[in-house]
Structure formats: structure tokens, C-alpha cells
């Protein structure tokens, strides 16, 4: 039996209230909120978070043999982004890490390919969606990521078995963006609708046939894609009861593009019951349909970080800050030097620390060293250290400060001395935090972020953020 072993959805902490857009520009926006990646997040960091949740939700010791990363908004071209995720997760060096991105369809496409593959595969999708101010893409888009550990039940219990899949492909131009362009362009809506609806019906019928199911037997229907009007039309034609259609998170998160079908599927799996049939329909440059049946194992499956809880726990982001984070407007920076580019050689040497947040622990005294050290702070032992992975260890704020004058892509810097559970300390930057909400004793967790970019090189490292959602 092949299917999904575990899933992770990641929704960034910040929300933009869409009504702020019209309040500022006089047009655009809409109702509800959309999720916004923080200034220190990109598709790679969001992918890391979703992948961490997916692996945390899998039985201990379950390791993917391959990592695939899909995004329409890659942090790098030419250089593989999946290798960063691979490093953050400390996957085995013999596992390939491959980008499948470029187009939005690569998200669902990678999931399907993984389901058709043999080895355990970790499939990660992430997207950062936006558009020109007042555009539909700006308001309706969302940022987020999803990840699935896909495999056979001889690796670990499968919680959702793939029982049918089908696609329909046809070349037509609906939405496009050439390399170097920031924003997507779109053909008039009706043309796309006339293409998408029949393709969707074709794939839907083929998938149900393969699964030997009728539309009435579908308990949960996930509708995703890049063409909202076509999705609405098609939903009405599938023969599935309206109650079975799952919340598409449009009112709270927005459409997370490459990640979205996965994000909705991860959320659906969090509440799935054994035997339920979950169908995913995605309309992006054609149609892809995946039909799953939840297994008995889903009853004991617990998501490491439910999507619902992340949707619930959010912080408001003013539209002014959104425009600045998206570099639509540039605000006056502090009169401090911008950072130099990092050294590839040094970062290569320290990759376990930099990307995976692994320190060293004195084998005899237990003293934790962050960053890892060869000589112990206590006792003076040399090279008698064990590796201490700390990315999943929560901590407590010992003291903190707000730096209003240091260089930051989004001043001020909130900085704290964090004491980790079980011993060990690191003074480190905080994120997803309001400057005035902190007190000594607050609990924090580690999150993978982009500190800055210099000479086109992204400087990834870890920050701490307040614990707001149950683990």
C-alpha cells in the first residue's frame, strides 16, 4: 500500500486584513485576511518549517530517501533550493534533493510523482504569492508551505492510501510570468474557464474510475488551482455534496499557489476518519486529481502542528509593512553598514550548525556549546563532544532587548538571551514578535529563517519565536 505517511502544513504568523488595501488605495482588497511570509521568510524557509512538521508527525526514525521541492517562487535559480531544506532537516547525504519548481503545477505534480515512486519521498511545496498593489493576486494570494512524507506501509503506517489518480493536460495560455518579472499576467477569465472545466471533468471521471468510486462516495473534496472562476464552476459539476467541499482557506490564508492543494490536504488529514475518501482536484495548466482513502492508521495520527491552529494564531500586519516587506516601497534604513555576503567556505564547514542548529555537548559534564566547540567550557576536555541537535528544543527568555539602530531588513531587531530546556544558552534574534509583547520567562521555539541577502547569497540561520500554538 502506497500513500501518505505524514503531512505538515505551514502558515506564516502574519495576516494582512484585505480591507486595508482599499482603505489605502481606494480600490482593490476585499474581505477577510491573507497570510504573509515575514521579511525573513522565503519559500525555502517556509518549506523547511512544513517539512519539519511532516517529519515530526511521522513515526520516529522514518527517513525519506529523497527530497523534492516545488515552488513557483524559488529563492535561487541555478542553485538547488532543496539542498538547503535537506541540510536543515539533516537528511542522509546519500538522499538526493531536487527542485521541481518553476510552475505552480509542480506542487501537485511532485506529490503525484512521489506517489508513483518506490522509495520514501519527502515532497515539499511552498509559495509566496502577490501582485501589483490593488490586484486580485495581491489580495487573494497567500503564503505558505506543505510537505508530505510519501511511502509504502513497509516503511511506516500509511494514513491515506492513494486509490486513484488522473490528469488532463493541454497547452493554453492563462497565467504567465517570464523570468525576471515580479508579477503574473493573466488572459481574460472566460477563456481559461472554458478550458479548465472540461479538463477537470475529464480527469475527475478518470480518477474516480480508477478508484472504483462514485462521486457520492467522496467524503471530503479539496478544490485548488489558479483559476477561481473555473474552480467554482467545476465544483458544481462534480456530483459531490456541497458539505463535502472543504474550506479552501480563501477567507483567512488566501491561495498559496504551488503549496495550496497540499496545505488543504494536510489540514483535511488532521481531522480525517478511517475509511473516509478524500479527493484533491487541482486546476493548474490542466487538471490533476488524486483520490485517497484514509486508513485505520489515521485514527492514531497526530499532526505535529495542525494547520487549523496556525490559521487561528496569527498577528496583524499593517498594509504599510506588507508593502515594505514585499519591497513595493523602500523605507529609510538605519545609518549602519549592511552586512557582507557570507563565506561559502565557512558556511560549508559549519553547515550542521548554520542550517540544522546542531551544537555540541560535553560527554562528561553535559555542558552544551552553541555554536559547537571542540574544547569544553567546563572541565577543559578536548574533542569529547557529542552532537546536540537543538532545533526542536524549546527555550525560555532570560533577558531581552529591542535594538532600534542596528541594520535589519525590518527594524527594530528584537533580541533575547534564550535558555534552552535541559540546559544551554544562546543570545539570538527573535521573529514573529511584537516589540512590546515580551517579558522575561516567555517560552520560545526555533524557526528557520533568512537573516539577510548580500551579493545575491541568502544567509539562512535560525531565530527564536514565541510559542503560540500547541505542539
Amino acid at each position, binding site marked *: 500500500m502506497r500513500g501518505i505517511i505524514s503531512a505538515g502544513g505551514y502558515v506564516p504568523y502574519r495576516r494582512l486584513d484585505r480591507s486595508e488595501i482599499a482603505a489605502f488605495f481606494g480600490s482593490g482588497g476585499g474581505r477577510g485576511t491573507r497570510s504573509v511570509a515575514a521579511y525573513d521568510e522565503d519559500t525555502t524557509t517556509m518549506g523547511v518549517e512544513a517539512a519539519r512538521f511532516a517529519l515530526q508527525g511521522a513515526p520516529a526514525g522514518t527517513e525519506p530517501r529523497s527530497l523534492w521541492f516545488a515552488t513557483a517562487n524559488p529563492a535561487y535559480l541555478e542553485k538547488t533550493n532543496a539542498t538547503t531544506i535537506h541540510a536543515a532537516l539533516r537528511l542522509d547525504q546519500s538522499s538526493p534533493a531536487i527542485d521541481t519548481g518553476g510552475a505552480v503545477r509542480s506542487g501537485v505534480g511532485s506529490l503525484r510523482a512521489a506517489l508513483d515512486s518506490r522509495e520514501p519521498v519527502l515532497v515539499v511545496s511552498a509559495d509566496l504569492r502577490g501582485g501589483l498593489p490593488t490586484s486580485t493576486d495581491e489580495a487573494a494570494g497567500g503564503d505558505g508551505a506543505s510537505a508530505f512524507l510519501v511511502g509504502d506501509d513497509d516503511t511506516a503506517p500509511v494514513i491515506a492510501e492513494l486509490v486513484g489518480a488522473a490528469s488532463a493536460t493541454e497547452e493554453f495560455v492563462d497565467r504567465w510570468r517570464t523570468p525576471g518579472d515580479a508579477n503574473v499576467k493573466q488572459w481574460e477569465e472566460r477563456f481559461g474557464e472554458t478550458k479548465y472545466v472540461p479538463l477537470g471533468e475529464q480527469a475527475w471521471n478518470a480518477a474516480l474510475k480508477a478508484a472504483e468510486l462514485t462521486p457520492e462516495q467522496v467524503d471530503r473534496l479539496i478544490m485548488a488551482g489558479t483559476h477561481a472562476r473555473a474552480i467554482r464552476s467545476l465544483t458544481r459539476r462534480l456530483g459531490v455534496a456541497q458539505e463535502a467541499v472543504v474550506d479552501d482557506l480563501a477567507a483567512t490564508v488566501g491561495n498559496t499557489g504551488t503549496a495550496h492543494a497540499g496545505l488543504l490536504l494536510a489540514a483535511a488529514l488532521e481531522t480525517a476518519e478511517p475509511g473516509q475518501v478524500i479527493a484533491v482536484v487541482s486546476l493548474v495548466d490542466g487538471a490533476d486529481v488524486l483520490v485517497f482513502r484514509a486508513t485505520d492508521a489515521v485514527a492514531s495520527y497526530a499532526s505535529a502542528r495542525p494547520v487549523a491552529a496556525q490559521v487561528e494564531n496569527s498577528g496583524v500586519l499593517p498594509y504599510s509593512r506588507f508593502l515594505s516587506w514585499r519591497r513595493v516601497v523602500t523605507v529609510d534604513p538605519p545609518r549602519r553598514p549592511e552586512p557582507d555576503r557570507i563565506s561559502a567556505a565557512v558556511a560549508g564547514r559549519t553547515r550542521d550548525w*548554520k542550517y540544522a542548529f546542531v551544537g555540541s555537548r560535553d560527554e562528561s559534564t553535559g555542558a552544551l556549546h552553541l555554536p559547537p566547540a571542540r574544547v569544553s*567550557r567546563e572541565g577543559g576536555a578536548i574533542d569529547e563532544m557529542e552532537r546536540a541537535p537543538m532545533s526542536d528544543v524549546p527555550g525560555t527568555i*532570560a*533577558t531581552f532587548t529591542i535594538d*532600534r539602530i*542596528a541594520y535589519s531588513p525590518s527594524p527594530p531587531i528584537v533580541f533575547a538571551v534564550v535558555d534552552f530546556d535541559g540546559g544551554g*544558552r544562546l543570545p539570538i*534574534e527573535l521573529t514573529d514578535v511584537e516589540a512590546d509583547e515580551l517579558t522575561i520567562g516567555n517560552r520560545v521555539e526555533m524557526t528557520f529563517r533568512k537573516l539577510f541577502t548580500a551579493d545575491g547569497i541568502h544567509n539562512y540561520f535560525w531565530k527564536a519565536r514565541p510559542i503560540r500554538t500547541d505542539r
Partner: protein
Amino acid sequence: MASHGIKDQVAIVGMGCTRFGEHWDKSADDLLVDASEEAFASAGVAKDDVDAYWLGTAMSGMSGMALARPLQLQNKPVSRVENFCATGSEALRGAAYAVASGAYDTAMAIGVEKVKDSGYQGLVGAGKTPTDGTGRTLTAAAMFAMCVPAYAKRYGVDAEEMREVLAHISAKNHYNGARNPRAQFRREVSTETICASPLMAGDLRVYDCSGVADGSAAAVVVRAEDAHKYTDSPLYIKALSFVAGNCSGNADPDYDYTSFPEIEAAAADAYAQAGVTDPRREIAMAEVHDCFTPAELLIMEDLGFAERGTAWKEVLAGTFDLHGEIPVNPDGGLKSFGHPVGASGLRMMFEAWLQLRHQAPEERQITTDRSIGLTHNLGGYPGEMVSFIGLVSPELG
């Protein structure tokens, strides 16, 4: 194995110190020429009479040639040294130990920094060492700001009292600096102005932070027995101590940001070298590293001028005011002088040179029956710093 020190083996016989400030029209070379000329004249020597030179600069030049070229030194040994904000004091250690060793008869320690040319606010790190980008990028102000809530919480000082304490330190140093023609800022500042100034980091306001200035200072040192060949009133070195921290405060959850262990250790060593047993009653005056007002507060306890948890009361009681029991930063400190990194340690020693020999201007000359002056630098941040302490006296024994 012991730290013996060089008590009474070496004497300062001449010093120079430029005005500190925004020297837009002067280069580091110009400042070096000005400070060294004053020091040579003060000691009554020419540059060729000095056998060896130690140049302290963190970011204004590399190698001994950064001094040999502007001064046109002919075939002289020049060591360029750097040790964070204790760089100027490090130059003095090098020169003094070289003379004490017998290797040279006469040596000069000179420090310089040209900070204002960077075009940025505050100090800008000199290091361009390639890194993995995981290091902290906070300003020093933010790092020292973390001491304020930590101290207040540990000793039960409420936020308003704490503000008053920090403002008193700032106002005191500006009061002293207003009486010093070499200071960058020569204006008294009221506590009201200090408390209303813009926030920089944490609870620290503009007037809690030292300024940024260019400057240079220099000292000529000789063996103690030769001192009177140069001057009737030499200043004898009683102790020079230095601790380079192992950065354990960054990793050790027991460190609580209410003290600077590196300073405490450097003080213990310096007092032992000099035979000082009760600093509160033996030290005549101190020039300490008031980079930020909470630093000066904690330093008072680390140096043993106040019991733990009591320095804030002593500050408010005026113990460290110009005419208090132990005047601290009678020249105005980093607050009034700014902090040209390579020069600051020697600028502090210049004030000891003036005060202990009763040559300070009347309006800030301290009156005391004690003879030992203390200079102190820290370089780095709470939890990770270097610390220097020097003790000097016009008296032998």
C-alpha cells in the same frame, strides 16, 4: 606560575592627548603626529630617543608602518596591536613590559582611531573576516541594554529609580566633560534632557550612549630608576592586568547580566599586583569604560567600589561624583569624549596623569589624600568581553 606584575618598575614620564571630536580636517596620521609631538615634548625627548613603539588601533591602520610612516621613524621597531576597546591600553602594556624586561630604555605607547570617516552611526567593526553569517548583528547599545532589566530585577530597583541612576551617571560625566577642553562634548546635560532623549535600544536613550569621535593619545615610558632624568613628577605603574573572556556568558545559563566577570577577574589581578586590599578606600580616582551608562553602574561593583547590589544607591548618593569619595571619569569619560577605540585607554591614562600630579584644570582637579589612580577598559559585550585595568601612582612603594 603567577601574575607578578611590574609594580614600580616602569614610569610614565610624558603624555599627550589630542582634543577628541569630529576631526573632519585631520587624518589618523595627523592625529598621531599631534599626540606624539605633545608626548615627546612632555617627556623632553625626540622621536629618535624612543627605542620602540606600540601603536594601538582597531580600524585605522594595519602594521607598525601605520605609525612609522606618518612619524617617519627610522629603523624603529613598531608593534601594531588591537584588543577591541582596550586597544589603547594594550599598547601601553606592550610598551611597559618591553621596558620592564630590559629590552629597551624608552618606549612609546600611542593609540589612534579615525571613526567618523565611516559615514555610519556608532562604531563600525573593523573585522572583515569571512563568516558563516550566524553571528549576532546587534549594536553594542542593545547588548548593554540587557543589563538594565536584569540588574533592576535582581536587586529590586524599580524602573523609575533605574532611569534616575542611569541619568545621574550620564549627567555626572557630562558635568565633568564640560570642564575639559579636550572633550568632544563640553556641555552640562540635565537629567531631564537625558530622560527625554530618543530611545536607541532597550531602555537606553541617546544620552546613555557614549559619543563617536576621532582622537589620539600617547605615553612615553622608561624604567622607574631613570624617571627623574625626564621629569620631576613621573607616574609609576603599579599594575597592568588583562583578561580575554572565553565568551561563556553567551552559553552559560548561570550568567545573569548583572556583572562582568572578566572585569572582576582583571580587578583581582591588578589589586594583587599593586598590593591594594581595599579599593573603596585606596583608589583616588578612576577612569572607567562608560560606553553605556549601565556599564559604568555594573563596573562600580566589579571594581569593588560598591558592594553587589548597592552601586545604584552609591551613584545617587554622589559617591562617584567629581568631588565624591571616588571621582569616576573626572575627565568626562567616554560620554564626553566619544570613543576612538585605539585612543581611549591612553586618554584615560592622560587624565590620571593630570589628576594625580595636580595638573588638571582647577575646575575639575580632584582633592584627595589617596594616590592610586585606576584606568579601565572593557571591549566586547556582556557575556563576552576583554577587560583591562591599570593602576598608577606618583608615589613609589
